[in-house]
């Protein structure tokens, strides 16, 4: 590694169990970065042997062209095993995924969250049997969800009227979502990968209810505001 750069602007390495993280400062000019990467690979080649590398990009905005060059000049040239990427920028994460490369688990979650960042869908009417709403964000129904209607959302779902139909919140398998109904009258709800079946005997039947995840199962709680 060249030593003429300030410490906080150098490419650094951070090890964990069987992985080695290559941290690339996000403000480092690209020209310098390629040179530094090359030096790092040569200087630390013994560290890279038999270890999976995680490339940490911070907030750097990268393109598919950047990735291609990275793979060619760094990964292939130095015979490196690459495990995954960490990126704070959404477009960078998208570029990584679009090339079939792996994001770290934390970033996959973040990426899903961002994808779901679209506006809340507000429906100003009741949903009748057979009608189905799918949305990649939160859904607010100002009306009833009748028996036979379906609301499928990646975010939270709130029903201001009677919930008699099916609601699936956190459709992309994320369970930290909630379903709220002003009058809870449905026999099944789905949240993330969890499905819960209920009967009219439930204490909260017909009440103002919030459904949320709790220790691996679903918690039904009457909302008292």
């Amino acid at each position, binding site marked *: 590694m060249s030593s003429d750069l300030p410490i906080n602007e150098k490419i650094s390495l951070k090890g964990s169990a069987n992985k080695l993280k290559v941290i690339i400062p996000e403000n480092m000019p690209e020209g310098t970065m390629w040179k530094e990467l090359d030096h790092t690979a040569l200087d630390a080649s013994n560290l890279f042997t038999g270890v999976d590398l995680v490339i940490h990009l911070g907030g750097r905005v990268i393109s598919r062209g950047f990735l291609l060059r990275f793979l060619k000049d760094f990964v292939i040239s130095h015979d490196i095993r690459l495990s995954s990427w960490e990126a704070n920028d959404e477009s960078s994460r998208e570029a990584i995924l679009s090339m079939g490369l792996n994001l770290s688990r934390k970033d996959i979650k973040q990426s899903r969250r961002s994808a779901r960042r679209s506006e809340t869908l507000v429906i100003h009417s*009741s949903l*009748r*049997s*057979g*009608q189905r709403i799918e949305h990649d964000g939160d859904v607010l129904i100002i009306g*009833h969800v*009748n*028996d*036979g209607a379906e609301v499928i959302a990646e975010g939270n779902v709130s029903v201001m009227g009677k919930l*008699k139909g099916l609601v699936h919140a956190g459709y992309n398998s994320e369970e930290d979502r909630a379903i709220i109904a002003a009058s809870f009258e449905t026999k099944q709800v789905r949240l993330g990968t969890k499905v819960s079946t209920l009967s009219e005997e439930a204490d909260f039947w017909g009440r103002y209810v919030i459904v949320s995840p709790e220790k691996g199962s679903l918690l039904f709680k009457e909302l008292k505001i």
Partner: protein
Amino acid sequence: MDSRVIVITSGKGGVGKTTTTANLSVGLAKAGFRVVAIDADIGLRNLDLIMGLENRVVYNFIDIIEGNCRLQQALVRDKRVENLFLLPAAQTRTKDAVSPEQMVTLCEELRKEFDFVLIDCPAGIEGGFRNAVIGADEALVVTTPEVSAVRDADRIIGMLESMNKSPIRLIINRVRPNMVKEGEMLDVDDVLDVLAVKLIGVIPDDDSVIKSANSGEPLTFGSKSPASQAFSNIASRLVGVDVPLMDLNANEQSGFFAGLKKIFRI
């Protein structure tokens, strides 16, 4: 008056679409309107039986569409009341035998001749339903106070709304006041709460309906039964007469045994 094309539909089978079509057709014709009832249930023809006209069916509306006969030849005139006609369905064909465009053309032709064109829609939500509905301006949705029928009616109303049919009005058929009172049957308010459309009539469950269907004599020809009265009231409401809803509990309490019960306060 401008001609009105009304589809009688439900989604679920067996809730009383055909009976309603027959009775409203007779009720409107008796009020002096020129009425044609179309059986759009191709392949499962029933309206001719309920109206007691089965022996006079020669052509059907597929024959008109295929050019085998003229419209006037296929129309079966009901001799019991003036201005009432039936356009029967083909029993030996399937619902694919007619296209939506042909159905629209047929309705437009009938519109020129009649004050009311009532279309008896097949059960289901597939092509047969769409063909029956496409030429109509407005809809009467028939349901019974059962959760399955209500759910299907809800589905149908959603589809009718998306097809811009208006008004969409509801008929609740086979209501049994005793069961409602005991909490064993949905009441009118329960049904309206879900379906949220305007109610045009409630028909009490009545043995006379079965007898009339079997005899081919729609109740509105002159029966005094509560169901007959309810159908007549709906026919009146269709033409804008303000008739209050019947008190079904009053009907429930009439009769000899009900009288005895009253005396002995049972």
